């Protein structure tokens, strides 16, 4: 492990790890699929080709809101090499929700495969299949579309006015009923306050920018079965919703995800091309490949929800919070996607983090506008909610003359307090993270050099915290499955339903299985991402794969181990409880030198064919919480308004790090995205036309290697959760959350300017700086 990571494991470990310690889990072997990735042999969806394959592309609306009066496809069809052109008239009239999380009421079926009405600039309205990409490009330009432009609305507040254009025919363009939390009497709480703070906070429209643009290849066999190679986080959702829309049974859709170039939540949704590709392939009876260009991945992709939050809190004489009132409005764009879920999570999150259980009133609204679709993105609702809360907490500390860290430690939720899901929190993880980070950077000793020097460059430190659920409970009743099959030579096939979108799921799963079975990683092959083969799984998101999916692997491995021991018990004529499984051999307590190799237990003998042992694991936990605190140092150039992050100290309490290097990788990557969101990343939509102004990597500015600060990552394992494998909790989403407010608060320390809107662009900063 490198010097930038510190891993701290206190004893005791609550019986969550074996007595003789861990040997595979809690280490950082190279990824089990790493060799493929470093040699260029890993296959991603767009790398597949088949004989006779066609290429497909979507024609996208040039209006943000328009009725499609007529589409003339004759010229395109006449072009040599064009094999099919489809419009809404050729596509199934079946409304779908884009991301059908099973058993959840939060999704709204409001999308057609191809619509008769475009609801955002870039909405797909027709599609072509042709023999080459060049012909495809020409054909798209030969399709003639007659639009009837409709009045459009882009601002979420405007969209709720009675005379606003209606996007889906819902009242005031609301996606659904408001999400409301009420506890105690908020007015009473404000009456008790010595000071009341109220502020408006706003977050921008960052885009996940997974490096692999959306892509899929579809192929039908003559028996009517569809195979789709797709870049998706949720193979089973793709199967489920394709089968619904195409009107074919689930077993006639096979979804294969081999390698995936990132998703960060957005690839939970089915995108238009996945439907269109299947339809084009069915129509032409040829395989069809569709790849989004980078521009399409912006236009037809999913961004984070821009959210406006009005936050009002009361502070008592004793320095404790007395009341919190929140109104949260979220801009979901042309279609609902995860709009309701994100609003709900934002509301639940902002109800927690700082103790204010008695007097609370929160209302969240999700609104349609004619902007590109906002969807699921790492930090789902939490990024926005905690930016507001963490900024205002800082303001309260400053205004009341209390050190921001001390203020936090006094009010932060801890053991037994209510979590966002209204469970009781396990452990003082937040306080521990705050203290550990403060110690590492020397919070109380730091020199506040910033504001008063004569140089235009000012420096300051800031802190932000977060807590995040592992898994999507209570939004989704969590569940994962795993199957482990032992082969006749003692090797193992581990079959899991989760896709590995790049986070290291396969490696994590293999490590857990290897730990339980006492075998090496090399003796395990993970099979995943194939709906014909693996057990059901809702997908890789919500910081759930280790916590929920890893738990299923643990159960399956234990199930297999039990069968092995039972076999050994017969063979060795030794009671079960006296057997132990170590390094591929089963030993009896009284005969530590003899034992029997696992291979010999399963290989068959004397003409008897080998037995197949199958372990099965189904895991349905509720929820656990991980905690984090980020400390960021910034330098602000107060003449040009640019902010540079100089260093970050990231402390995360995650129960158990199954693979510490992979955990640190999540943290460092989350910080890169979070720095981008705080400073440079914003998908900008023209306020008059709804046309995206920066759908490219030149003008949508993600931090590059030269822009990234030094990061020190501290992983704590203070509060392992009994419901997670070996005590492990999630980490995927956590690190993107606290970095934003940490940067905003550091800018305040450096310059005295309070920024309540992300991203903090140079122009916004200079304007605010001039006003202070």
């Amino acid at each position, binding site marked *: 492990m490198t010097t930038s990571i510190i891993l701290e494991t206190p004893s005791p470990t609550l019986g969550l790890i074996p007595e003789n310690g861990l040997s595979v889990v809690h280490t950082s072997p190279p990824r089990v699929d790493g060799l493929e990735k470093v040699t260029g042999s890993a296959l991603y969806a767009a790398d597949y080709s088949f004989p006779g394959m066609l290429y497909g592309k979507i024609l996208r609306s040039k209006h943000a809101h328009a009725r499609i009066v007529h589409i003339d496809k004759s010229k395109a069809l006449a072009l040599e090499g064009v094999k099919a052109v489809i419009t809404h008239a050729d596509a199934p009239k079946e409304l779908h929700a884009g991301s059908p999380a099973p058993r959840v009421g939060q999704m709204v079926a409001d999308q057609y495969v191809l619509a008769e009405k475009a609801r955002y600039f870039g909405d797909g309205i027709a599609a072509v299949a042709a023999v080459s990409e060049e012909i495809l490009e020409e054909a798209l330009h030969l399709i003639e579309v007659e639009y009837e432009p409709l009045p459009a609305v882009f601002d979420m507040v405007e969209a709720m006015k009675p005379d606003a254009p209606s996007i889906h025919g819902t009242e005031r363009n609301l996606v659904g009923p408001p999400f409301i939390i009420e506890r105690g009497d908020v007015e009473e709480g404000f009456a008790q306050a010595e000071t009341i703070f109220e502020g408006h906070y706003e977050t921008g429209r960052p885009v996940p920018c997974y490096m692999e643009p959306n892509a899929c290849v579809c192929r039908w066999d003559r028996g009517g079965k569809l195979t789709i190679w797709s870049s998706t986080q949720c193979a089973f959702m793709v199967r489920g919703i394709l089968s619904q829309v195409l009107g074919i049974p689930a077993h006639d859709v096979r979804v294969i995800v081999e390698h995936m170039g990132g998703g960060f939540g957005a690839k939970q949704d089915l995108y238009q091309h996945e439907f269109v590709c299947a339809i084009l392939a069915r129509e032409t009876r040829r395989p069809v490949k569709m790849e989004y260009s980078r521009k399409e991945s912006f236009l037809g992709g999913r961004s984070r929800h821009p959210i406006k939050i009005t936050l009002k809190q009361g502070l008592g004489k004793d320095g404790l919070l007395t009341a919190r009132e929140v109104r949260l409005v979220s801009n979901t764009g042309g279609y609902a996607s995860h709009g309701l879920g994100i609003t709900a999570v934002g509301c639940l999150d902002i109800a927690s983090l700082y103790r204010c259980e008695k007097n609370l009133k929160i209302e969240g609204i999700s609104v349609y506008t004619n902007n590109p679709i906002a969807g699921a993105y790492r930090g789902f609702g939490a990024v926005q909610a905690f930016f507001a809360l963490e900024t205002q907490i800082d303001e309260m500390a400053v205004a009341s003359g209390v050190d921001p860290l001390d203020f936090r430690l006094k009010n932060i939720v801890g053991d037994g307090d209510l979590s966002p899901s209204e469970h009781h929190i396990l452990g003082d993880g937040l306080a521990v993270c705050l203290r550990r980070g403060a110690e590492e950077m020397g919070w109380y000793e730091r020199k506040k050099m910033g504001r008063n020097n004569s140089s235009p460059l000012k420096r300051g430190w800031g802190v932000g915290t977060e807590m995040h659920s592992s898994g999507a409970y209570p939004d989704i009743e969590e569940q994962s499955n795993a199957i482990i099959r032992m082969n006749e030579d003692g090797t193992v096939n581990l079959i899991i339903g989760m896709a590995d979108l790049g986070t290291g799921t396969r490696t994590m799963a293999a490590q857990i299985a290897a730990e339980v079975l006492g075998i090496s990683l090399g003796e395990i092959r993970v099979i995943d991402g194939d709906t014909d083969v693996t057990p059901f799984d809702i997908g890789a998101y919500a910081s759930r794969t280790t916590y929920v999916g890893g738990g299923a692997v643990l159960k399956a491995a234990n199930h297999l181990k039990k069968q092995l021991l039972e076999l050994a018990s017969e063979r060795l004529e030794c009671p079960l409880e006296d057997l132990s499984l170590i390094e591929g051999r089963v030993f009896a307590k009284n005969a530590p030198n003899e034992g029997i190799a696992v291979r010999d237990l399963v290989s068959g003998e004397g003409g008897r064919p080998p037995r197949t042992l199958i372990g099965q694991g189904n895991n349905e936990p509720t929820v656990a919480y991980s905690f984090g605190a980020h400390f960021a140092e910034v330098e602000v150039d107060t003449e040009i308004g640019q902010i540079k992050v100089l260093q970050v100290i990231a402390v995360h309490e995650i129960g158990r790090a199954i693979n510490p290097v992979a955990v640190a990788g999540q943290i460092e990557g989350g910080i890169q995205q979070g720095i981008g969101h705080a400073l440079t990343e914003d998908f900008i939509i023209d306020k008059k036309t709804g046309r995206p102004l920066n759908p490219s990597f030149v*003008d949508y500015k993600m931090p590059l290697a030269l822009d990234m600060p030094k990061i020190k990552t501290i992983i704590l394992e203070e509060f392992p959760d009994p419901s997670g494998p070996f005590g492990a909790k999630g980490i995927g989403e956590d690190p993107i959350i606290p970095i934003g407010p940490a940067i905003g608060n550091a800018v305040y320390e450096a310059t005295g300017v309070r920024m309540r809107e992300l991203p903090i662009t140079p122009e916004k900063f200079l304007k605010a700086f001039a006003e202070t």
Partner: protein
Amino acid sequence: MRPFDYFEPATLPEAVSLLERFDGRASILAGGTDLLVEIKERIRLPDHVINIKKVPGLDYLSYDPVDGLKIGSLATLHEVETSPVVIEKYAGLYQAARELGSIQVRNRATVAGNICRASPSADTLPPLIADNATIHTFGPDGERSIPMEKFFTGPGKTVLLDGEILTRINVPSPPPNTGKVYLKLGRRAAMELATVGVAVTLTLDGNECRSVRIVLGAVAPTPMRATDAEDILIGKAISENAIEEASQAAKDQCRPISDVRGSADYRREMVRVLTGRALRMSIEAANEGNSPFDISTDQTVD
């Protein structure tokens, strides 16, 4: 990409005759880092692409004290940024080259292509104009030489005639006590198109400003000289007041637009700030008589 025919002329006259033959429907391909993007994005739809990289004698970068720096039309940005003489004597150009795109881009992109694309934000233009460069062309009517300052007529537009090819850029040798700076404003440390670019080439005579050329990028349809600012400084003693006055004059003279990279007001204000900074840095460099950029390879990072 939309289909086109492809040619690899072996001589300049051959290239020129192809251009004439295709009469406006052909594009010259040098590094291709602009042209291919424009074709892919259907901003430009040539029926014919003429790759001039096989024409011998265009790929050079040479210097002599009398004629100064000669940049052949196939010289890449990478060749420029790694040239010791550029680093030493053309610090503004060096800085512009080093901050252009990425290494991958600079290994293909040519200075000539940067000039002929004539983007208002093109990085090498301000320092080359500040250095009083001249452009040499070859066309149906033979050779021409054009002061670079007069070369640009609008975004993407130059005085190049149909069939004309840029063959060489000539940059005079700097007199002693000259300081050169190019400052590029962008949000990231690399892969940025300038929101504002400011180039200053300034020569001192004792404490007096003997000559100065200030060129602004990305704040007008073409790179522009901040002549009002220059007038404030030339022939006068250097002072903080004069620098501030000149910076303000540059701000007043520029004519930026608002776009996704920055508002017109922001750009104007940044012209003021960056002109001031560039002037101070170039004065320091002129005083020390060397490049303001540390070029040692074993520099340590804090």
